[in-house]
């Protein structure tokens, strides 16, 4: 075979042709590449001679078609040729030469050879391998763990039939939910909807079965609810349409959790009775364990049983509506139709709807409604952990590059013996792939445990968490991720591994010097700069999340949550008509106040921060009866005397309730400042009067104004609120609630008095279950639990990123010191003070950090901008946070540079120069 002489391509088109020739296999190219280029040149010349412009253009389609027709078949030809040749050679008994090994390059045996070589490399330096594997395991493991959560919560399709056709329907404020007549209208008239159902929430007392009475969450659902979701029962059946009729006997469907917990998962429960609120109810079905709509805390479903002939008033909004769209109807189309239907209501029902507050549908695709809130948090976490993985890859790449430096002699010898650069590069890549696969496997095992840990720690407000596991898509992702990271950190060392063709390396004294060595050092520095930039971005994001959380927590809730025990007491309603419940609660409170360590106690109908609220229409100051549309509204609360004091709510004006405010005494009410500002602007509310929007309700006099309480939690503005004495609630506020929350302020740990309180309640009413026993601090913490969770994780990743980047800086600077021992020795010998040498080296590290910070800050500004929905009271470019991040990275960079620099200052100049 003649020498492969590269012809110099003339002109642009020939250059392009040359590039395209790479589609052919190498042996073909070597043999015919020149000839084909010449061929092309001749064709081009002839074409130009025919028509200067047009003909060359017409030539290209033929040329390209030629490539398409022949390049791939030529590769097959090459493979078969080599196969044939080796087989005949084997039968002929010739010994393979170096040139033969070049021809066998592509065969499977070389892949196996590479793997064996890589495995040897892995085990020959156990300490090095351990560091690399540890870094990879952490990086890949963390990424796989977070991805499992993202996959389980966000990516997996919902477990319902045809989830894309499902939607959740509510109304825009001030209405919020849907009233019975509104639901009936939608149900009757909406054509874009195939099936629609309404959902209401409640609780009930479950007794019997020899167990403690239990307070359970009940969901009342209209006919079609289960059919819309399409999840079959585990045992038994759904409700029939007849069971949704007003006078039908109540049947129930149990949740899997309740069935296991209380009825020992006994399938013969179907058809049996269960005592709910004192009444026997027949169980017709049990749902499977993963069915958790409307929430995972629902224990029981019962039919809603709306009476379509006599619906509740239009103004009573309490239903949530789910619907399955008709096939081929879009979400937007359905919303438009519903809004068209309700656009007439303002006209048709002027008493209910004010013209300046028209009814508008607030709909969401089911998936958005269920997991939408978690999306930004989870994606932020995925981004952060991806950054950590990238930084880990950079560190491993640096480690491999450093080791590559150490093996240059060995590689130079191999090249001299005939191994091609590509072969060596492939071997390094195989080694990287092996590291990555082993690290990936260990990482998956770590993730498996990590996921369990995450699920245990994670707040229950993150939906679908129970279904998160390391399953097939996650494993597939891990495989791709491992190979990808292997390629990522292996590519650069592989490309740099093969020394250049000259014998330069062999002649060197063993230290990396010369052009290639310098190139590698530059590369390593560039890698470290990128690490610093990535760490900067992660730190900025975490810092802003931390600031947000702190800002959130500093919001004044309007009460003092420390050392308060709360629990919900549910009396059996039938035994407590009218105001009998008031007396019982008074007895409870009297006795509770006698417990040692109790400072004060009270009751309230809905616990601030945790429980939802209603909004009732009212009249003030003797105003005449008017329609709902024309009347103001406020949030009602029923409280006992002692409530405000126990919670630490501040009185602004007037007085708080006392025992004198009882049934028969003058009707009183306390309002908050928001309500005072809204309804008595510019003056005091004291002496004003409030009544429910209904002819029978008496006027209540405002005797006190309290400072606002954030009933909805940190982020929700306090609504206008009115507080009625529990003893008078049946007169002034429609009814006396039988379920109340106890709030008890204690001297020490609130949980220490739980059993004492339980004893008191059971003595007074044995059939009353106690539920939701928590401290007020826990209630407040729970309201921000998912934010806290993701903030903590993000902060953890950011610190990990910083540590890894610090290690990266240390590695590069330290290596530089080793490389330049001779130069340092020389400087010292020539009289440079050691401090100057120190400054020189630390200066390098600082320079890297500065460049990395510059890029990182720019990147951080972009990234945090995209996250700004998650931040509270802090801008995405907050200077204080940026400054803190800069200082942190600066300190780490200084430390990471100073440690190896110290080593440099104790260099013995004579020894250093002699070693050269």
């Amino acid at each position: 075979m003649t020498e492969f002489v590269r012809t110099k391509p003339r002109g642009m088109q020939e250059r392009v042709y040359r590039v395209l020739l790479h589609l052919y296999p190498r042996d073909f190219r070597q043999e015919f590449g020149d000839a084909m280029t010449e061929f092309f040149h001749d064709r081009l010349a002839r074409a130009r001679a025919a028509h200067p412009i047009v003909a060359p253009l017409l030539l290209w389609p033929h040329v390209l078609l030629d490539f398409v027709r022949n390049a791939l078949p030529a590769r097959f030809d090459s493979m078969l040729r080599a196969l044939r040749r080796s087989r005949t050679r084997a039968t002929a008994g010739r010994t393979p030469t170096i040139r033969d090994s070049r021809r066998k390059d592509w065969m499977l045996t070389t892949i196996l050879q590479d793997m064996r070589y890589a495995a040897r490399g892995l085990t020959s330096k156990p300490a090095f391998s351990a560091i690399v594997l540890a870094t990879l395991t952490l990086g890949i493991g963390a990424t796989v763990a977070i991805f499992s959560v993202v996959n389980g919560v966000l990516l997996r399709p919902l477990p319902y039939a045809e989830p894309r056709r499902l939607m959740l329907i509510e109304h825009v404020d001030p209405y919020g939910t849907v009233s019975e007549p509104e639901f009936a209208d939608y149900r009757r008239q909406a054509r874009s909807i195939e099936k629609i159902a309404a959902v209401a929430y409640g609780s009930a007392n479950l007794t019997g079965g020899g167990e403690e009475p239990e307070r359970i969450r009940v969901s009342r659902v209209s006919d079609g609810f289960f059919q819309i979701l399409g999840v079959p029962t585990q045992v038994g059946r759904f409700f029939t349409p007849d069971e949704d009729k007003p006078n039908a006997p109540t049947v129930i469907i149990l949740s899997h959790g309740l069935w296991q917990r209380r009825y020992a998962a006994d399938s013969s429960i179907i058809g049996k009775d269960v005592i709910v609120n004192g009444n026997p109810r027949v169980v017709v079905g049990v749902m499977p364990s993963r069915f958790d709509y409307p929430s995972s805390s629902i224990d029981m479903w019962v039919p809603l049983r709306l009476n379509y002939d006599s619906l509740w008033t239009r103004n009573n909004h309490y239903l949530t509506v789910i619907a399955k769209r008709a096939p081929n109807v879009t979400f937007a189309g359905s919303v438009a139709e519903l809004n068209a239907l309700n656009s007439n209501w303002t006209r048709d029902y002027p008493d209910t709807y004010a013209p300046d507050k028209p009814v508008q549908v607030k709909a969401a695709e089911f998936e958005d409604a269920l997991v939408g809130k978690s999306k930004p948090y989870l994606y932020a976490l995925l981004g952060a952990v991806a950054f950590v993985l990238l930084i880990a890859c950079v560190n491993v790449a640096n480690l491999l590059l450093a080791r590559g430096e150490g093996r240059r002699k060995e590689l130079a010898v191999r090249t001299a013996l005939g191994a091609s650069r590509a072969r060596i590069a492939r071997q390094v890549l195989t080694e990287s792939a092996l590291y990555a696969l082993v690290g990936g496997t260990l990482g998956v095992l770590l993730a498996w445990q990590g996921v369990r840990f995450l699920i245990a720690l994670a707040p229950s407000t993150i939906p679908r968490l129970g279904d998160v596991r390391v399953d097939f898509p996650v494993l597939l992702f891990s495989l791709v991720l491992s190979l990808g990271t292997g390629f990522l950190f292996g590519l650069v060392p592989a490309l740099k591994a093969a020394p250049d063709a000259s014998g330069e390396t062999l002649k060197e004294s063993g230290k990396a010097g010369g052009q290639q060595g310098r190139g590698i050092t530059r590369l390593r520095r560039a890698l470290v700069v990128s690490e610093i930039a990535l760490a900067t971005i992660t730190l900025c994001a975490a810092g802003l999340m931390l600031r947000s959380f702190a800002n959130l927590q500093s919001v004044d809730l309007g009460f003092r949550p420390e050392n308060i025990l709360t629990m919900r007491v549910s009396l059996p309603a039938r035994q407590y008509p009218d105001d009998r419940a008031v007396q019982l609660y008074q007895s409870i409170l009297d006795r509770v106040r006698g417990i040692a360590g109790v400072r004060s106690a009270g009751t309230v109908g809905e616990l601030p921060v945790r429980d939802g609220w209603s909004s009732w229409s009212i009249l003030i100051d003797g105003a005449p009866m008017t329609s709902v549309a024309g009347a103001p509204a406020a949030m009602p609360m029923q409280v006992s005397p002692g409530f405000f004091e126990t919670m630490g709510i501040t009185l602004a004006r007037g007085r708080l309730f006392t025992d004198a405010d009882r049934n028969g005494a003058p009707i009183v009410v306390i309002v908050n400042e928001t309500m005072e500002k809204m309804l008595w602007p510019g003056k005091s509310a004291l002496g004003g009067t409030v009544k429910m929007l209904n002819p029978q309700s008496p006027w209540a006099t405002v005797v006190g104004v309290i400072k606002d309480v954030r009933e909805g939690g940190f982020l929700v503005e306090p609504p206008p609120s009115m507080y009625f004495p529990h003893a008078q609630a049946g007169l002034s506020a429609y009814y006396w609630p039988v379920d109340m929350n106890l709030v008890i302020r204690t001297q020490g740990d609130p949980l220490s008095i739980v059993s004492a309180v339980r004893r008191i309640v059971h003595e007074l009413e044995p059939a009353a279950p106690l539920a939701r026993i928590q401290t007020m601090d826990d209630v407040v913490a729970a309201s921000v639990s998912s934010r806290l969770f993701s903030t903590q994780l993000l902060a953890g990743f950011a610190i990990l990123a910083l540590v890894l980047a610090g290690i990266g800086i240390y590695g590069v600077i330290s290596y530089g010191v080793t490389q330049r021992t001779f130069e340092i020795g020389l400087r010292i010998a020539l009289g440079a003070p050691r401090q100057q040498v120190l400054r020189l080296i630390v200066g390098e590290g600082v320079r890297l950090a500065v460049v990395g910070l510059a890029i990182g800050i720019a990147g951080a500004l972009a990234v945090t901008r995209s996250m700004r929905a998650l931040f509270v009271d802090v801008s995405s470019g907050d200077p204080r946070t940026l400054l803190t991040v800069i200082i942190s990275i600066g300190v780490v960079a200084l430390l990471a540079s100073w440690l190896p620099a110290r080593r440099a200052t104790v260099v013995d100049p004579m020894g250093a120069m002699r070693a050269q």
Partner: protein
Amino acid sequence: MAGIATRADRDAPDSRIPLRSIDFLILLMLARSGDRHGYGIMQDVAEHTNGSIELEAGSLYRTIRRLQDDRLLEESSRRPAAESDDERRRYYRLTPFGKRVVAAEAARLRRLVRIAESARILAPEPAR
């Protein structure tokens, strides 16, 4: 693609026919004109088929490689005069074995033509 044949088989021209038409064309042109480079072969083929077969570089050189592997043609060490040549051009010529194969194929085709003539499909042409 021919399978792996034993030594004896491979030396018999008859084992290589019928040739692919493209192979035959290229070998025939080489038989006619002696040593040619790739572009020249393409030109010859185009000329003799009245432009209906214009080989592109990929097809041509793949075929040349195949014919080389089958030892029907080889690279020529002779070069025409320096001025009309490019150092980098490769010239090809028939091997003796290739010559025998071309002859065998041509004979086979002539037999077929004779059958066509006797069936009056083709008007007989007098031998030149």
